[in-house]
């Protein structure tokens, strides 16, 4: 076998092996999307009931709470960025990071200091490489987050919101994550979690209950205490939902990236085998012409000696 042909054969073998791997990863990701979607669906009843309850307290009482009132001059904001631990997911992490950068820029333009909180190794390494300050970060659970993880993330954030701004607390809490729209579309979004924009939550609740008027609630023990207990849970559940959606989006992005990698590998194998075939053909042609040339040279030589 000629050198050229051998090189092509070797490359085809290696690309085939890669294709097998990417195909397997695609299939694993596809099965994980379904699981992650189920988790999102399972957490929805809790989240929607909680939203209903928060809306009920916030609209049904005149309670002023640190977590619902907007500060006149907000000077510091916290941004929670959710990325993934692992790569091989196309632009998934970098899109979320880009959205966070935009949000940070916007907040800074409004004259606010920004504290960054990060979930996922990709985000941490992005900020670490650029030597930017990260207030706190969490890694190791982005593929299948549990409620306990969401609680761990929410804890310091809620503490920061409740603290006075002068002592290092924050006035606002934003969250950037990748929303799972469909199997094909995942978009990075930024949401302001706190202070609650009550009009918006009320609107959402109205939409979901189709214009039903919220009843006057009796609060046990009191509206303030209920709100005190309710809001941290609300933040936790929103963060949990964001983590789950981000996980589903990550798996969808992985699936898509691996699918195009598999397609590319197929394409590459096709063109490489064309080249290999051409090389083989050229080799055969050359051998034939060598034989023919040799034979006719021999014939000429014998004819000349006669």
């Amino acid at each position, binding site marked *: 076998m000629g050198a050229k042909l051998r090189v092509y054969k070797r490359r085809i073998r290696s690309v085939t092996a890669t294709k097998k791997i990417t195909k397997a990863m695609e299939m694993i990701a596809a099965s994980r999307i379904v699981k992650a979607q189920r988790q999102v669906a399972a957490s929805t009843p809790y989240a929607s009931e909680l939203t209903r309850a928060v809306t*009920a307290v916030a609209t049904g009482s005149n309670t002023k709470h640190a977590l619902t009132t907007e500060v006149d001059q907000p000077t510091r904001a916290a941004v929670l960025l959710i990325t993934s631990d692992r790569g091989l997911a196309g632009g998934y992490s970098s899109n979320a990071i880009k959205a966070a950068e935009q949000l940070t820029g916007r907040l800074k333009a409004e004259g606010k200091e920004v504290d960054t909180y990060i979930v996922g190794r990709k985000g941490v390494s992005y900020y670490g490489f650029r030597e930017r300050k990260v207030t706190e970060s969490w890694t190791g659970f982005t593929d299948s987050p549990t409620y306990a993880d969401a609680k761990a993330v929410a804890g310091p954030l809620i503490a920061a919101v409740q603290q006075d701004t002068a002592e290092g607390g924050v006035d606002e809490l934003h969250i950037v994550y990748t929303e799972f729209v469909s199997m094909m579309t995942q978009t990075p979004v930024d949401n302001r979690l706190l202070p609650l924009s009550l009009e918006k939550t009320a609107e959402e609740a109205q939409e979901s209950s189709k214009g039903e008027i919220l009843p006057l*609630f*009796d609060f046990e*023990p009191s509206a303030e205490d209920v709100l005190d207990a309710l809001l941290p*849970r609300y933040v936790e559940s929103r963060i949990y939902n964001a983590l789950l959606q981000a996980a589903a989006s990550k798996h969808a992005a992985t699936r898509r990236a691996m699918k195009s990698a598999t397609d590319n590998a197929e394409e590459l194998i096709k063109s490489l085998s064309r080249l290999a075939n051409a090389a083989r053909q050229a080799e055969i042609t050359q051998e034939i012409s060598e034989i023919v040339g040799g034979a006719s040279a021999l014939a000429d030589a014998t004819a000349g000696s006669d």
Partner: protein
Amino acid sequence: MAELHVELVAADRQVWSGEAGLVVARTSSGDIGVMPGHQPLLGVLESGPVTIRTTGEDGDGTVVAAVHGGFISFADNKLSLLAEIAELSDEIDVQRAERALERAKSEADAAAERRADVRLRAVAGVH
């Protein structure tokens, strides 16, 4: 008999839903019983067993669940029990809870002790 619709929801799943005639739960200011037609209510739950007297198609019965913190909200004859962790009594592993209780006692972990205790009481049906 009047009925109320109950949804017992944990953070990551729906634990139980159905019709009931009476729900007894522990709020921070004491036990509260909710029957159909109760006035709209929103309260903070303590960890403790929740007793639901069911009236569904399968006849009268009692469902007991261990609930660790959360909220009770009632409006329009719909009662929601929201809890970070909620388990029905028949889902609870008694031996594991007993082991957890002992361990918590020896390590003086009050929160864990309370959790295990609530689980055991839910299984025993003692309110």
